[in-house]
C-alpha cells in the first residue's frame, strides 16, 4: 500500500498519490513544449511504478503551450491513467482546456473542472 502522501517533484510539476488518485500540479509559468511534455510524462510514468491511476491535473500554472507539446500529451499523457480531471480557473485555463479537449482529442475520458470537489467526484467513479 502506498503511504498516504507519496510525492515527487521535477522542474515542471509536483505529483502526489493520495488515496488512489494521482494529484498532478504544474508549477507556475510552465510552458508546455515537446521537451517539457516528454519529461513530465516520463517522470509521471516512473513515479506511478506500473500502476494505473485516475489523475487530477491542476493546470493553473500553465502559461502557454505549443502544438507539439499538446499533441504529445494527448497521445502519451494518457498512458497508465484511467481518466483525467483537469482543474483550472474559469478564464484562460478553461479556454486552454477546451482547446485541448476539442482539437488534440485526448484518448481517455478527460473533463475540465473549476472546483476540486467536482473533479474528485468525477475521478472517484474510475477508482
Amino acid at each position: 500500500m502506498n503511504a498516504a502522501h507519496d510525492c515527487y517533484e521535477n522542474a515542471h510539476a509536483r505529483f502526489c498519490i493520495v488515496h488512489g488518485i494521482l494529484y498532478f500540479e504544474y508549477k507556475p509559468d510552465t510552458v508546455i513544449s515537446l521537451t517539457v511534455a516528454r519529461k513530465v510524462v516520463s517522470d509521471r510514468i516512473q513515479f506511478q511504478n506500473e500502476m494505473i491511476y485516475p489523475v487530477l491535473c491542476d493546470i493553473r500554472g500553465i502559461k502557454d503551450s505549443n502544438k507539439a507539446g499538446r499533441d504529445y500529451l494527448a497521445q502519451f499523457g494518457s498512458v497508465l491513467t484511467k481518466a483525467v480531471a483537469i482543474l483550472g480557473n474559469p478564464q484562460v485555463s478553461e479556454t486552454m482546456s477546451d482547446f485541448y479537449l476539442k482539437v488534440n482529442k485526448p484518448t481517455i475520458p478527460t473533463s475540465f473542472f473549476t472546483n476540486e470537489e467536482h473533479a474528485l467526484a468525477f475521478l472517484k467513479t474510475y477508482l
Partner: protein
Amino acid sequence: MLLEMASGNFSQRIARTDEDDELESLTVLINMVAEEMQETLFPKGYINTHHLQQNLTSLSFIVDEDFIILSTIPEANTLLNYDTVSIEGLAFSKLLTDTSAQNFERLLATILVNEKVSTLSLNYLTSNQTEITSLFSSISRISNENKFIIHSIFVDSLENGNNHEDFDTPIRLPKTRRDDARLMQQVYDYILSNLENPLPSLKELSKIFGTNEHKLKEAFKYFFNTSIYQFYNDERLKRVHLLIEQTNMPLKSIAYMNGFNTYPNFSKAFKKKYGYSPTDLKRDCSK
C-alpha cells in the same frame, strides 16, 4: 467557433446580431476568414493528424565503431551550438542528455551487430545545456565500412513565419471528398483511442462508421497515406516503446495492454519497426 476552425471545421459561422460594435465586427471578420480558409487553404477538407507536419530540421553524424563522431553537418552548429570542429572527435553520447545517453549505451551492443536500421528516441543537450528532443532518430551501419550514420529529425520551434509555399495550388475537391475527410478523421481518432484493443475488422469498422469496406480502405489511404492496419500498428508500437523504455513493466503486460494477442506477434512486429527486439531495449534496465 474558433475551436471548430482549429479542429478543421470551416463551415460553422457565428450568428449575426443587429449590434454594431467591436464584437460584431470581430464576428463578421471571423466568419469571413473561415469561409476563405474553407475555399482556398484546405481543399482536402483539412484533416488533423495530431502531429506537426512542417518546420522540420535534421542532423546527421558519421561515427566510428566506438561511436566517436567523425564528421557532421553545419546544421549541428545552429541546432546544438557547437562548432563543427569541436564536435569531431567527441563521443556521440556526449551530445545527449544523461538519460538519453544511458539508453543509447544500453543499445550499442545490439546496434553493432544489427544489419538493418535501428530507430531510437534521442534527447540532445546543446552546449548551453538546453535540451532538444528529436522526433525521430535512426542509426545504421554504412555498408562495407566500420562506420555508422546517425540521423535525427527535429521540430524547428524557432519563429519561422508562415511557409505557405508548402500548399499546392488549391484544387476544388468535390463535396463528397470533404465529407469523407470528416468521416476519416473520426475513424482516425477512434483507432487512436482504442489502441489497447485488437483492431476491429474492416467489416466491423465499416458497420461502426456507416460506410462500405472499399470506401473505408481507400479514403483512409488517401487522406493519411497509410493503411488502417499499418497506422494502428505504428501507433501502438510507439506507445509500447515508451512504456518499455520508461518503466519496469513486464514485457508481456505491455504487449497485452496494447492490443497484442500473443507475445511472439508482438516481438516480431516490434523488431520489424525498430530494428531491435523489445528485450534488447529492456536489457540491463536497472530494477
